[in-house]
């Protein structure tokens, strides 16, 4: 069946370069592990699979249903167009649109190719079982969910977290900045990289159509970003306008954009202020059981800091802070009096770090974002604090400390 073969070729054509894999294997593999992923995407991949296996009629029927259910899903229209066209002529590649295309149509088409490629890639290159992104060194069981974004796969991974550890719940196709990642200055149309937290859940009624069914701002620029002189603001996770089911892999002004059904699921799941959002160029997945071992060195550092603070030895305590420490604009010298007051209030009691979480962010520097409730023995509660640590040689030091709740 020549048309089956012709279309098979287009499925293969959009596979990841350098890792040739039969379309059938790829999609079957993807299909098997797809249960929790976006339903519309799963249907799209199933259409690719059917096409790759030469089941053109069935693929056509399913594509017709998919575009009926999601009339704004451009990629679904594209494969539907290919399948229809394959009835009248050979289709050589995904989106084998005939005729001369103007510049805008050509760039839309290449963006759709890119999107298809990213979706397939993310479904073929699955995180190994029982692994988590390396940034999550310690996550308090009170933090019920976590988000990790892999820009190289245009993918957002949503985790559940509990005493038993982290579990991957779902993952979703996402779009990032038009000019990619590593946001530096305001208006650079890039998505920031780092460890962030969801700061708010904006009422969709207060937003324009452009943002879809909602928006979850994150705390860009964070303390590390500010320290590095990065500028810009208003980085959100948000949805898509009514005429677009999803946007191109690189399409935003720096926000992370999800299809509305996917965003809705995330909005229903996450906790404002608690849910961490790690945005990475490429996530490194490490075995979850290795976490205990990997967190040990920093655990010791934290204990040493805690002991110093408990002991009331201010000089020893100050050795944990960088010279360029800054807390909401206060230099170390300006900040010492309040630290001294805190130490006085502790009165030598042992400090407990409750609900401790720490996420490691490593780029050209090695940093740690630490969150905990600081409760001296005998007290029922204490302030929730966040610290940013940086490794200087073999010494971890605090360059920011503040109360967040």
């Amino acid at each position: 069946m020549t048309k089956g073969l012709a279309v098979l070729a287009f499925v293969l054509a959009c596979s990841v370069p350098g890792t040739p894999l039969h379309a059938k294997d790829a999609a079957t593999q993807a299909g098997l592990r797809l249960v929790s992923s976006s339903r519309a995407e799963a249907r799209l991949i199933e259409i690719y699979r059917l096409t790759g296996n030469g089941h053109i009629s069935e693929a056509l029927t399913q594509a017709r249903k998919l575009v009926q259910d999601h009339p704004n899903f451009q990629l679904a229209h594209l494969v539907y167009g290919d399948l229809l066209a394959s009835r009248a002529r050979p289709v050589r590649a995904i989106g084998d649109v005939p005729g001369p295309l103007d510049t805008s149509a050509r760039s839309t088409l290449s963006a759709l190719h890119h999107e298809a490629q990213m979706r397939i890639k993310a479904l073929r290159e699955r995180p190994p079982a029982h692994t988590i992104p390396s940034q999550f060194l310690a996550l308090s069981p009170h933090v019920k969910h976590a988000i990790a974004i892999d820009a190289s796969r245009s993918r957002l991974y949503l985790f559940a977290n509990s005493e038993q550890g982290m579990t991957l719940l779902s993952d979703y196709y996402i779009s990032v900045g038009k000019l990619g990642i590593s946001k530096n200055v305001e208006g650079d149309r890039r998505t920031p990289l780092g460890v962030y937290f969801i700061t708010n859940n904006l009422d969709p009624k207060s937003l324009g159509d452009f943002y879809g069914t909602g928006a979850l701002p994150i705390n860009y620029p964070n303390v590390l970003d500010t320290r590095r002189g990065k500028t810009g603001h208003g980085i959100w996770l948000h949805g898509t306008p009514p005429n677009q089911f999803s946007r191109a892999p690189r399409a935003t002004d720096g926000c992370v954009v999800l299809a509305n059904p996917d965003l809705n699921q995330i909005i229903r799941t996450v906790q404002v202020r608690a849910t961490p959002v790690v945005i990475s160029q490429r996530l490194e997945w490490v075995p979850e059981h290795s976490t205990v071992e990997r967190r040990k060195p920093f655990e010791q550092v934290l204990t040493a800091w805690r002991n110093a603070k408990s002991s009331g030895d201010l000089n020893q305590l100050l050795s944990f802070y960088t010279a360029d420490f800054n807390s909401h604009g206060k230099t170390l010298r300006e900040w010492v009096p309040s630290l001294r007051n805190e130490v006085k209030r502790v009165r030598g009691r042992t400090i407990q770090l409750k609900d401790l979480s720490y996420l490691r962010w490593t780029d050209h520097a090695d940093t740690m974002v630490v969150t905990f409730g600081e409760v001296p023995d005998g007290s029922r509660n204490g302030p929730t604090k966040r610290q940013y640590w940086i490794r200087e040689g073999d010494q971890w030091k605090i360059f920011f400390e503040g109360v967040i709740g």
Partner: protein
Amino acid sequence: MLLLSVVVTPTRASTHDEVNALMRAGKFTVALDRANAYLNSQPRDPQMRFLKGVIQRESGQTSQAIATFTQLTRDYPQLPEPYNNLAVLYASQNEYEKARSALEMALRTNPSYATAHENLADVYAKLASQAYHKALQFDGNNTEVQPNLAMIREVFNTEAKGQSPILATAREVNRVEPASPSVEDPVRPSAANGIADEEVKSSVLAWAGAWASKSMKNYLGAYSPGYYPGNKSSRKQWEKERQQRILGKASISVQLENLEVQVQGDKARASFRQHYKADSFSASGLKVLELEKIGGRWLIVKEAIGD
């Protein structure tokens, strides 16, 4: 498009032929009156109802034509032509999904119905184009032309096989008188006839070869300058349409089986079973070519398909 002309069968000057002739002459009102008068006494007659539908379409009464053909598909679901024409009408209203369904029905009743195959390919191409437009979010300004789908106008034969009217589009029309020797055409040496036969055969094969190799110059050159495409379109339109159809295919294969040739003077008739394959579809069917020797070459003056 392989569209067949409607030819009045000289031996059977029926009301059908008369209505047909009136329609061809553009006298739609009279033709429709005749058809209605006939249908008063023969209300189920599928041929006349079919003609009525064609007249309605030709005279711009699209919704009436749709009603006529829809009713025909209900009463004679085994006939592919009403489905085909229904599809043409739907397509003219940009209802391509409906056109697709109708053509698929036509092909269910007759899987080798070449016209429906070609029309369906056009409808698929149009649907694909619409899908691509949505995928690429072109602005609503769709400048693409509508596909030119072929309407079947023939009266089909209802005489065969009991109650079910059996399609006989091309078989009935374009019939050439049997090549019997006549006074004006004294018996020639058989060798001469043999040579003429071979000439015609090689012309037909050259025509098929030009078609399959998409050599438009040779393909169109195989037709006589006086060739009448038969679907009201001009020769020029027909050539353009053929060009689009043929060059639009990635690959074409045309095979002729049981090629038989009858030569009578400067006229010839070639009949054969044509196996046509283009890209994703194939169709087989009887084809009859009428040729005339013009300027030393055998050129096609009529082309007809049959089931």
